[in-house]
C-alpha cells in the first residue's frame, strides 16, 4: 500500500499556497534589501519557480532529504525552514542557519532534511547518489530528492550520478527545474535533445516532463517518483518546465531574452494559477487571499527585524568549523 499521491485537502492546499506566497515575498524582500545595500554578495532569485519548489517538497516527508541549487531559497522554505533564520543568514549573522558562514548559496537546514543549497552547478547531484546509497545501506524508509537546473544536465558529474543511481537502484529523485536558461545560454542551444527528460533513457530510468508552473501537477508527478524510490524501484528524472522572472543573479542585464518572453511566462504565474483554481473550487475567497498576503508580509517583516537585531559572528571564532 502506498501513502503517495492523494488529493490534497483544502487545508493542505491553503498551506501550500501560503508557502508559495511566502517564497515570493521572501525573494522580493531579499531583492529590496540588496538594492538598499543591507545584504552583500549576490543572490539568485527563484521568483516564478514557486510551483516546482512547493509541488516537489509537498511530496516529501520531513525525514526525506533534499539537496538544492544556488537558486535554493524556495526549496529551503518549501522543505520547512524558518524565514527568520534564513534572513539572518542573508545578513551574515550568527543566528543564521549557517552561523553567517554560508550565505545565500549555501543555505541549509539539516533538521528539516535540507542538506543545502550549493554554489556549484550540479554540485549536489553526485552527493545525492551518496545520500541514496546511505539510505539503502542503512535500510531507511527515506528518499533523497536533488534539485538542479537545465544547465546542470550538461555537467559530467550529472552523467556519473544518474548512472550510479540507476545501476544501484538508489532511492533518489532527480528533479530538474528547466527554466529555459543556464545563465545566458538557452537550453535549445545547449542540448540537441528536445526534452531533457529524454536523457533518462541513457541510464535506463524513467523520465517525465511536467508543467513546473502547475504546482499540483508537479506534486502528483513527484509523488509517483518518490513512491517508486521508496518502494525500491530506483531513481526517476523529472523535468519541470518553468521560468525565472528575474535575471540569473543581480548583475544580469538579461540581454539574452526578450521582455515579451518574460511577460508570457508571468502570465503563467504558478501562484495565480493555484489561487484561481482554489477560488473556482470554492476553497478560497479573494478576501482570504488578501489576508494570506498580509500574513506573509508580516512574517517577512518580522524575519527582517530578527535579522537586523541579531549579532554578528564573534571574530575570535573565525577559525571554527573547519574540522570536526
Amino acid at each position, binding site marked *: 500500500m502506498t501513502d503517495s499521491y492523494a488529493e490534497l485537502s483544502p487545508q493542505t492546499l491553503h498551506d501550500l499556497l501560503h508557502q508559495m506566497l511566502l517564497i515570493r515575498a521572501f525573494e522580493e524582500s531579499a531583492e529590496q534589501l540588496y538594492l538598499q545595500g543591507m545584504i552583500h554578495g549576490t543572490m539568485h532569485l527563484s521568483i516564478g519557480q514557486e510551483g516546482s519548489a512547493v509541488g516537489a517538497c509537498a511530496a516529501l516527508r520531513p525525514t526525506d532529504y533534499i539537496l538544492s541549487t544556488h537558486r535554493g531559497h524556495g526549496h529551503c522554505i518549501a522543505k520547512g525552514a524558518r524565514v527568520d533564520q534564513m534572513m539572518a543568514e542573508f545578513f551574515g549573522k550568527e543566528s543564521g542557519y549557517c552561523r553567517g558562514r554560508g550565505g545565500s548559496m549555501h543555505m541549509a537546514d539539516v533538521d528539516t532534511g535540507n542538506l543545502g543549497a550549493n554554489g*556549484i552547478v550540479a554540485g549536489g547531484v*553526485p552527493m545525492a547518489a551518496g545520500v541514496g*546509497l546511505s539510505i539503502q545501506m542503512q535500510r531507511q524508509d527515506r528518499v533523497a530528492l536533488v534539485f538542479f537546473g537545465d544547465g546542470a544536465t550538461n555537467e559530467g558529474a550529472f552523467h556519473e550520478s544518474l548512472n550510479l543511481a540507476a545501476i544501484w537502484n538508489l532511492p533518489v529523485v532527480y528533479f530538474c527545474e528547466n527554466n529555459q536558461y543556464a545563465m545566458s545560454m538557452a537550453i535549445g542551444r545547449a542540448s540537441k535533445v528536445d526534452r531533457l527528460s529524454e536523457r533518462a533513457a541513457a541510464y535506463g530510468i524513467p523520465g517525465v516532463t511536467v508543467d513546473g508552473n502547475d504546482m499540483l501537477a508537479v506534486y502528483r508527478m513527484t509523488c509517483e517518483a518518490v513512491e517508486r524510490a521508496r518502494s525500491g524501484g530506483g531513481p526517476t528524472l523529472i523535468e519541470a518546465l518553468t521560468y525565472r522572472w528575474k535575471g540569473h543573479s543581480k548583475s544580469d542585464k538579461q540581454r539574452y531574452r526578450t521582455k515579451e518572453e518574460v511577460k508570457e511566462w508571468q502570465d503563467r504565474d504558478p501562484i495565480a494559477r493555484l489561487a484561481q483554481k482554489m477560488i473556482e473550487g470554492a476553497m478560497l475567497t479573494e478576501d482570504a487571499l488578501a489576508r494570506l498576503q498580509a500574513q506573509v508580509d508580516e512574517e517577512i517583516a518580522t524575519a527582517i527585524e530578527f535579522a537586523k537585531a541579531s549579532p554578528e559572528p564573534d571574530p575570535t571564532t573565525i577559525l571554527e568549523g573547519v*574540522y570536526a
Partner: protein
Amino acid sequence: MSRELTYAEAIREAIDLAMARDERVFLVGEDVGVYGGAFGVTDGLYQKYGAARVRDTPISEAGIAGVATGAALTGMRPIAEIQFMDFITLSMEQLVLQAAKLRFMLGGKVEVPFVLRTPAGAGTGAAAQHSESLENWFVHVPGLKVVMPSTPADAKGLLLAAIEDPNPVIFVEHKLLYRTKGVVPEGYYTTPLSRSEIKRTGRDVTIVATSLMVARAMEAATELAREGIEAEIVDPRTLKPLDAEPLVQSVCKTGRVLIVHEACKTGGFGGELAAILAESEAFDYLDAPIRRLAGLDIPVPYNRELERRMVPQVTDIVEAARRLTKEAR
C-alpha cells in the same frame, strides 16, 4: 611474538578490522571487489563482506567522490579508493568544493567522515599520467586531512585512526611501498593523526622525509653513520594538520635540516616545511640554510633511467646530507 606484514597486507588488515567492527564502514571504488584492487590491497574482502560493502563502481571518479561525500554526510563511513592518485584530478570539485567545505559553510552543523585512499608515486614505469604525487594540492585545502604512511605498522594504525576521524582524510599510499615488509602489531590499534615521529635519532643533521623517502633516508643514514654523521629522521606521517613541534625541536638540536620528498620541488610540501621552520624558534639554531631534495620539475618520464633520476635516491640523500653538514653560515 612479532609478525611481519607487507604494507598492502597491513592496509587490508586495517580495512578488515574496521569493517568487522563498524557496519557503517564500506569500500567503494574501481575494481576493489572481485579484482581485489589494482594493487591487490583489497584482495579477499569482497569474498568476506559481499558486493554491497565492497562496492565496485564504473569509471566515475567524480561520482566516487560524490558518493563518499553524500554517504558520509548521512551517517556512513565510506572508504573510497581512487585507483591512481593521478585520477584524483577527476574528483577535485567534489573533494575541494564540497567535502572539504560543507562543515564550515553549514556553520559546523554537519560532518563528512570518509577516507579516500589512493596509490601515488613513480617507479613502476607507468609514466606521467599514472605516477603522480599530488599531496600538496590537498594540504592547501582547509577542511581536508592528508596522511602519508611510510611503514606497514604506520599504514595500519593511521588508516584505522583516519576511519575513526570525523573529517575527510586523503590517505596517500606509495605503490613502491606495497611489497615492503615490517613488524605490524596484531589486533585493532590506532596511530594518532597529526603526530610526527622520530624514526631515527641523531645529532648532526635532521632529515624530514615523507612516504617512500623515509625508507630511503633510513638507508642513507646507515651509510652516513659510517662517515661519522648521525642523521635524525623525522616522519610527519600526517601532512595536514601538521605536528610541527618534533621537527622544530629536532632542528634546534642539529642546526641543519634536509627535507626530502618525491613530489616535484616547486610547489611541493618541502616549501611549506621550510617556511614553517624558518618562522619557528629553530631559525636561531640554524647553522646552514634549510635544504630541500625533491623530484625534478618534470612529468614522470617513461624511460627507466630517466624515471630513476627524477626522484631522490639513497645516494642523492647521502650526498645532500653530507654536503649540508659541511655548509657554514
